[in-house]
C-alpha cells in the first residue's frame, strides 16, 4: 500500500485503508461523468475530479466510505468553482455539445440552463442513481429539501422544454 502511495506521488498518508490506484481507476469515470452532467464541461469536470483525488489523498485515512467521500469533495469543489467567475467563463467556453440527436441536445441545454443547485441533485438522483436520502447526504441538506430540489428541478426542466 505504501509503495502504491509512493508511486502515485501522494505521500505516505494516501494509501492507508484503501489502495489509491484501485480507487482512482474505478471512481474516476463515475465521478467525471457526474461532474460533467453538473458542470456541462468535460474539461472542468476532469479538473475538479483530479483535485478531488488530491484532497482525498491529503485527508486523514482510513475513510469509511471512500466513494461517498470523494463524491462529496467533488460536489464541494464544483460548488466552490461555480463561485469563481473565471472558471464559470471557462465552463461556458468548453461546454459539451451540440448533440446530433435533437431531443438530447435540447434536453442537455435545458439542463445546463438550470441553476447549479438543481443540477447536482438531479445528476445524483437520475444518473448516479442515489436514493433521495443519499442525495441529501451528498449535497448536505435535509431529505425534504433534496426531494424538493429534485421535484422543482424536473418542473423547471419541463417548463424550459415546453
Amino acid at each position, binding site marked *: 500500500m505504501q509503495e502504491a502511495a509512493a508511486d*502515485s506521488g501522494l505521500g505516505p498518508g494516501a494509501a492507508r485503508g484503501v489502495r489509491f490506484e484501485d480507487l482512482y481507476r474505478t471512481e474516476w469515470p463515475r465521478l467525471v461523468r457526474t461532474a460533467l452532467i453538473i458542470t456541462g464541461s468535460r474539461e472542468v469536470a476532469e479538473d475538479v475530479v483530479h483535485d478531488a483525488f488530491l484532497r482525498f489523498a491529503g485527508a486523514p485515512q482510513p475513510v469509511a466510505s471512500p466513494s461517498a467521500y470523494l463524491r462529496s469533495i467533488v460536489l464541494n469543489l464544483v460548488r466552490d468553482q461555480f463561485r*469563481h467567475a473565471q472558471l464559470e467563463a471557462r465552463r461556458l467556453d468548453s461546454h459539451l455539445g451540440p448533440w446530433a440527436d435533437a431531443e438530447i441536445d435540447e434536453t442537455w441545454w435545458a439542463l445546463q440552463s438550470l441553476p447549479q443547485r438543481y443540477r447536482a441533485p438531479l445528476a445524483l438522483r437520475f444518473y448516479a442513481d442515489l436514493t433521495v436520502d443519499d442525495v441529501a447526504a451528498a449535497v448536505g441538506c435535509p431529505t425534504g429539501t433534496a426531494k424538493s430540489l429534485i421535484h422543482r428541478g424536473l418542473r423547471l426542466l419541463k417548463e424550459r422544454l415546453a
Partner: protein
Amino acid sequence: MTTDLDDITARLIACMQAAAATVPDEAPPWDPAPCLAPSPRRPRRRHVPLALAATAALAAAVIAAALAARSTPAATRVRSALIAAAAHTAAGHTARLQVTSEPVGGPTLVATGLVDFDTPAYTATYPSGFSWITIGDQTWTTVWPPVNRTRWVKRQTTSPQQWPNAAEAELAGALQPDTAPAGLIAALRADTTTFTDLGADDIGRLATRHYQATQGPDWAADVWISDGQLVRVGVRAPTGTVIFDYSNYGLPVTIQPPSP
C-alpha cells in the same frame, strides 16, 4: 403509477447517459499536480450592482449640491465643459456603444451594441452570443445557454441570479439608463465633490481630454471628451468599473422588443 414528470425524467436520464458516454471508462495516468486554481478565499463581495452604487452616488451628488458652495473657478469651468459635452452627446440621439465591465475579482467582459439616448434604450451582445435589449425599464435577454435556437426572455435586471454569471448580472445592472449621459448631466449640474482636469489622453488614435469627477472615496466618474463630445465614460464604484465607449453618433438606430 405515472406522473406528469415521468416523461421528462426518462428524457433526462437518456440525456445524462448520452453525456456520460462521452467519458471513457479508463482513467488517465495519475498526475499529482493540481489542476484548479485555488478556491476563492477572497472577502465576501458586496452584492450591490454597479448601477445601484452609481445611482446612489448620483443621488448623493444631488444632495451634496445643496451643501456645495465652495466651487473654485477652475472647478466650475471643468464642470461646465463636462455638462456641455454630456449634453452634446445626448443631443446626438444615438450612438454605437461598447461596454467594458471589470467587476472586482471577476473577468473583464466586453459587450458591443447600440444606444438610443432619447428613449433611452440599449442593445448589446457578448462575443459568446449572449445578448440583451433594454428599453426604458424593461429588459430582455437571450436564454443562456442557447436551446437549439435563440430565444428571448423578459428579465428583471434586479435579480442577479437570472443572469449567466455574476459579472454579467452586474454589467446588466450597470446598463440602466441612470448611467447614460442624461444621468451624468444631472450629477454634474448638481455638482460633485471635486473636478480634476487630468490633461490630454489619447484613446486609440483619437485625441481626448480626460476629466474626473469624484464623490467621496468610493465613487468616481472618468470622462474623456473629444471635440466637445463624450467619447468615453468610466464609472468606478467599490464593486468594480464600467466603461462606456460611444462612437458613430447619430447613426440610424431602431431598438425594439424582440419577437416572441
